[in-house]
């Protein structure tokens, strides 16, 4: 597509419609930048720092992200809510963007990500593909944390449907030609957005996937069937997640027992 008549590709377009960018230069720079980052910004995290960031994020999700149906003290009741499947109801649901749009959560998530992936990136740089729409704030948290550390990394987005104008593109942003792709989303659960996006990255961009993929939450744990977590079907990717379902209170009662108060979201819900 990039060589089609009439398209101005500059010096970069290949048959996949990708711009050449600075792929080789980016990889070389990343190594030097990572060495600097390691010595200059107190990264990686100490075990105590890691634990503090992880626990802060865990509790924030538990308090602000999980919808739990059930009665509250004082007479109020939060009803079950309609499920994706027609006729079904949820008594429990994540709203992870309530966390990923919080500046403190995003900051800590970025630190946790680079604590884990920094050494991996140093050995072999990669680029990030975040899945619209929920992966976008996570992808941004990753690259902005990298920016603060002086580490260059490329981010692009995988759409759920092609843009309906322009070039009808499935991907947004700049794609580096020579770097494997780390897929990023908010949760690894039953809906196969990440798997489908991964397939498109390989088929349309002809880029290899990184051996890892990343989600904030892996929706497995006690009481949650692995059938509900589609990435278990991936052939050769290792899912890295910071949280699973065992980290959160599944019921109002469990929340009360843990925190000594009723679950209550801040802000208005519309």
């Amino acid at each position, binding site marked *: *597509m990039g060589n089609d008549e*009439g*398209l*101005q*590709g*500059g*010096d*970069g*377009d290949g048959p996949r*419609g*990708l*711009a050449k*960018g600075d792929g080789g230069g980016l990889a070389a720079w990343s190594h030097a930048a990572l060495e600097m980052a390691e010595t200059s910004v107190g990264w990686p995290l100490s075990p105590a720092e890691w634990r503090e960031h992880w626990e802060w994020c865990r509790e924030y999700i538990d308090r*602000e992200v999980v919808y739990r149906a059930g009665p509250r003290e004082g007479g109020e009741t939060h009803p079950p*809510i*309609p499920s*994706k499947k027609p006729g079904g109801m949820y008594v429990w649901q994540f*709203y992870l*963007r*309530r966390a*990923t*749009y*919080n*500046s403190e959560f*995003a*900051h800590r998530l970025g630190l946790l990500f680079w604590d884990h992936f920094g050494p991996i990136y140093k050995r072999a740089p990669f680029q990030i593909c975040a899945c*619209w*729409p929920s992966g*976008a*704030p996570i*992808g*941004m*948290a990753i*690259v*902005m944390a*990298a*920016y*603060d550390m002086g580490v260059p990394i490329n*981010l*692009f*987005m995988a759409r759920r449907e092609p843009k*309906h*104008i*322009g*070039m009808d*593109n*499935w*991907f*947004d*942003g*700049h*794609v580096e030609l020579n770097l494997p792709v780390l897929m990023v989303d908010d949760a690894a659960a039953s809906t196969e957005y990440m798997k489908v996006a991964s397939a498109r990255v390989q088929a*349309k*961009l002809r880029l290899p996937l990184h051996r890892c993929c990343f989600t904030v939450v892996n929706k497995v744990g006690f009481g949650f069937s692995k059938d509900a977590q589609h990435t278990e079907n991936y052939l050769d990717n290792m899912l890295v997640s910071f949280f699973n379902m065992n980290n959160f209170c599944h019921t109002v009662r469990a929340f009360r027992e843990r925190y000594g108060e009723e679950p209550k*979201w*801040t*802000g*208005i*819900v*519309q």
Partner: protein
Amino acid sequence: MIDHSEDWEWCRQFIDHHCVLRTDRPLLIGPDGSLNTWQFYMPVATLNPQFMARIAAQFWHRFGGNFDTKPFQIAGAESGGVPVLNALQWFARNQGRDVNVFEVRKKAKAYGLKNWFEGRVLEGVPVMIVDDITASMRTLHTVAGRVRAVKLQVYPYAFAICSCRSWRENGFKVGEQPVNVTTLYRIDDFGMTPGEYVARYKQPPRFQGATV
């Protein structure tokens, strides 16, 4: 007084070099179904932290004083506004400002809470609307209407990085309330045809966006 002219020019060139897909003939489908010879692809810029650092610096230079006097929260339109939200919030935090942001969906979620907004929405805090690019201000206006529908106050300023028209300042009304729209760039700041680009830079355009 901090001078952000270097940031402005750096970002202008970034957009001009990397974010505009130009064709010699009308091959690019427009929102109204017409065929065009140019198309902005702002995610090439808004997903780039170097670019967004400079945009955020200019934004907070313009609106930081307002925020410090009377805080606002920021709402972005799905989907182009999302990286703008995240970056503005990130760099605000680096400056010691804690700004709440949320996303306004194009349509309510079909299940669950059937919410229009993603993220926390704070009651009693005015809402500034932002987007990556605007043409007719229709998206900004729609988002403002959605915010107003839930009895939140719409901030009297809205922001977009770029206007597809020949203006940087414009406005609309939501109900009776005027909203002044500020953009950093207008279409005249760029070479929109291949000929204009080559005349300006003496080299062919280097669009960096994915076209698949």
